[in-house]
């Protein structure tokens, strides 16, 4: 027979699991947001090596 009664232990473990999930999702969001901002503020780059190309800057002007 399955044990259905919830022990206080289970609620503590659930709180830890949910907390850790929130922290991990938050961390991933920060890394993603930071990456987007860093790439956008790099200026004109080419996708294959993310290095600034002077010719792209000249063309943009």
């Amino acid at each position, binding site marked *: 027979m399955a044990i259905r009664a919830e022990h206080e232990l289970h609620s503590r473990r659930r709180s830890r699991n949910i*907390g850790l999930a929130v922290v991990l999702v938050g961390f991933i969001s920060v890394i993603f947001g930071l990456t*987007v901002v860093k790439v956008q503020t790099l200026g004109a780059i080419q996708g294959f090596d993310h290095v600034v190309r002077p010719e792209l800057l000249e063309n943009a002007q």
Partner: protein
Amino acid sequence: MSDASLITQEPEAEFGDYVALLKPRVMSLVVFTAMVGLLVAPVPIHPMIGLTAILFIAVGAGASGALNMWWDADIDAKMRRTSGRPVPAGRVRPEESLAIGVALSGIAVVMLALATNMLAAGLLAFTIFFYAVIYTMLLKRWTPQNIVIGGAAGAFPPVIGWAAATSTAPVEAWGMFALIFLWTPPHFWALALFMRADYGNAGVPMLTVTHGHGATRAHILVYSVILAPAALALAATPIGGPAYLTTAIFCNAWLLWGAFGIWRRREAEAEADNYAAEKAFFRFSLTYLFAHFGALAIDALLRVQGAF
């Protein structure tokens, strides 16, 4: 695994216990002062990078809090104010606290370096080292000047915030450092005056325990007299402005009046009203710091709006 094994001997931590390890109340001060350091810096910073910098400065501060709780578990257990913390209460094992402190320190420093620059990350690493090793492990149990020197750890966040925005740490940033550094001793000594039994029981050589209340009252007055001109001097730097000057004049007049009152009080008077003046001074000292940094932020916003 049998069902019986589910009934553990030691209480398990919930998520809030791990949050408590990071000393969220101290963290709020760190977040606020670091944010002001970022705001008043003369170089604009992208909001996402600014938020990330503040987040990881706060994580670094939390990490040093966890390392402090690991090392100080024995004395925390003896003090009424700290006996309910997760490690002395047995909800989190000391080695867990150590592991969390070390891991978060590494994450915070690396992330701050990636988000901003090496100077800010280096200052954060030094701050964590200073709080966890110099203050917690070396000074706290050794000298009644623990609060004075240890206060430097809490004074670094606005400098780190400034460095995150500009990659520099000029005199204005160190002016903010001086404000927190000189504010820390009178703030904690006022607390120690009405928490004397706690520190005495734990064997922490607070000034109240080693030199008595009279010497502590004199120290509060002397440090307040040094703090007031340092706070006012910040108004003369480029980050000062009308809001800061007004705040500094009123708050420091109040600080000196309060410190003078505490110095003049006899112990019997303090015991008679249950340390009302000391408690009021302690509460006011919190407002004092938030008001000064809040005023710096207001002046920075006014400057951006072209008000002066």
